[in-house]
């Protein structure tokens, strides 16, 4: 870890000396490659999530609706790899900490640039893991929106990681294996201690993973001690993000509810008329951007049947509008790939019961491979564009 804290105007403090063991390149390489793998998984799955949630214009009507479990896996991995990276990052920084005090602080322009890039790498890594972890608990101590800043700093992190690997390539190869030339030149008596540290690091990764992964990987629900969500908690067997009360849904707003379906032949349906249409049952997960997910049984009307009845063209984007008063996702745009998928429902029932108000009564969208915030609740209008 190197920063750019050198300023020629101030007297430089006497550099500390480090006599402790394992602040060496072999330990840094062994931990660094695990950390690099975790951060790469985190970056790629983060990009997937961003594209699915805020699609760029080229993908706006072409996102894949399959595999149905896709977003559940990628977003579960995003949060799990970020959590696994926390102990890896702390051990990596501990290993290279003495490099912060390297003398002279700046040897040349390339050296200064390298130290600057390492400062960007460390700062962005700490920020991404800290802000992502806090977001999973819906705790926002910073005065800006989480999503755009977490997204932008993710690019800084992955870019400075690639640059770091390029700069350190000779050292990484020299210390890659236990028998590599660089490793062989290190004091042999450190090997046992190093192995113990790597085992402990693996145990730390295992511990934080096992105690949190149950929020999305339900077979581990019994070990879910520290995750912000638990699959066993939530109305009708499913956790909730935005409740009816917080969305501003009142009994008054629902009185005389009718679904409006727009297209070349627009029409309206009452709840009874919707219930009289052919119903389909599907098993699909709600997968939240915060990492938790759970599968559920949904019953309702195929969205494509509703669109066909309005004479909507096959390739049309669909705009879905909720009755909710608050929140950024009142209006949701659905690519035709989802709207035409036979698994995509306007659901009326959840796990065999009529939807509860917090799950979107009277009707909500459930589609495969989509972030939870786009599974619009309290649907009032569906229009082919």
């Amino acid at each position, binding site marked *: 870890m190197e920063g750019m804290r050198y300023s020629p105007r101030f007297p430089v403090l006497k550099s500390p000396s480090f006599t402790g063991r394992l602040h060496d390149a072999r330990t840094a390489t062994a931990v660094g490659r695990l950390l690099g793998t975790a951060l790469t998984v985190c970056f790629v799955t983060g990009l997937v999530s961003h594209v699915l949630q805020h699609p760029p214009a080229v993908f706006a009507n072409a996102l894949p609706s399959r595999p149905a479990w896709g977003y559940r896996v990628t977003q579960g991995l995003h949060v799990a790899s970020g959590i696994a990276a926390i102990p890896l990052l702390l*051990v990596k920084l501990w290993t290279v900490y003495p490099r912060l005090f390297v003398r002279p602080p700046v040897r040349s322009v390339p050296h200064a640039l390298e130290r600057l890039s390492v400062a960007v790498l460390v700062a962005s890594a700490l920020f991404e893991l800290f802000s992502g972890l806090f977001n999973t608990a819906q705790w926002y101590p910073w005065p800006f929106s989480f999503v755009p800043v977490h997204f932008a700093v993710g690019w800084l992190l992955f870019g400075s990681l690639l640059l770091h690997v390029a700069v350190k390539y000779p050292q990484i190869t020299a210390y890659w294996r236990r028998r590599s030339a660089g490793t062989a030149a290190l004091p042999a008596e450190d090997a046992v201690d190093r192995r113990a540290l790597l085992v402990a690091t693996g145990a730390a990764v295992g511990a934080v993973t096992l105690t949190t992964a149950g929020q999305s990987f339900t077979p581990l629900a019994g070990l879910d001690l520290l995750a*912000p969500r638990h699959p066993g908690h939530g109305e009708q067997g499913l956790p909730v993000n935005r409740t009816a009360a917080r969305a501003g849904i009142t009994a008054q707003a629902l009185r005389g509810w009718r679904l409006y379906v727009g297209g070349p032949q627009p029409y309206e349906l009452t709840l009874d008329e919707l219930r009289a249409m052919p119903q389909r049952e599907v098993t699909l997960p709600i997968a939240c951007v915060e990492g938790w997910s759970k599968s559920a049984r949904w019953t309702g009307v195929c969205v494509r049947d509703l669109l066909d009845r309005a004479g909507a063209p096959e390739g049309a984007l669909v705009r879905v509008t909720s009755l909710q008063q608050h929140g950024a996702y009142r209006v949701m745009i659905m690519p035709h790939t989802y709207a035409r998928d036979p698994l995509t429902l306007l659901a009326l029932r959840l796990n065999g019961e009529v939807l509860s108000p917090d799950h979107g009564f009277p009707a909500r969208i459930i589609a495969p491979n989509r972030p939870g915030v786009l599974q619009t609740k309290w649907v009032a209008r569906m229009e082919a564009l």
Partner: protein
Amino acid sequence: MRVARVVLGVCGVAFIAVGVWVLGRGAEDPGQVARWVVGPLIVHDAVMAPLTLLVGLVVARLPARRAVRGGLLVAASLTAVACPVLFRPGPLPNPSVLPLSYARNWLLALGLVAATTLVAALAGARARRRDRTGRK
């Protein structure tokens, strides 16, 4: 190899440029973003790392230093991950957010780590004793 390094480095710089561009294009206050991105770096380098090294000075002198270091590392990682669920202030949006008894769960996890550390330390001491007597 040289080509791979150059390609990797150029991609890295390009990705950093994308990040800066996305940040600059956004509506967020750059001063606040800088404060919150640099803040954790300063807290880590100036507070957390020196404290860890001080603890390390003590641990290095203990008879079962490897087991103790491992136990402390696992406990510290669990604590770091539990911080937001343990200390989140303010009312919760609904009962399915943070539904567990996190303080109890965290203590339970640390208890398990302490027990495992003790077993590992005893096993290590026993193995060392056997080593010594075997060599005599």
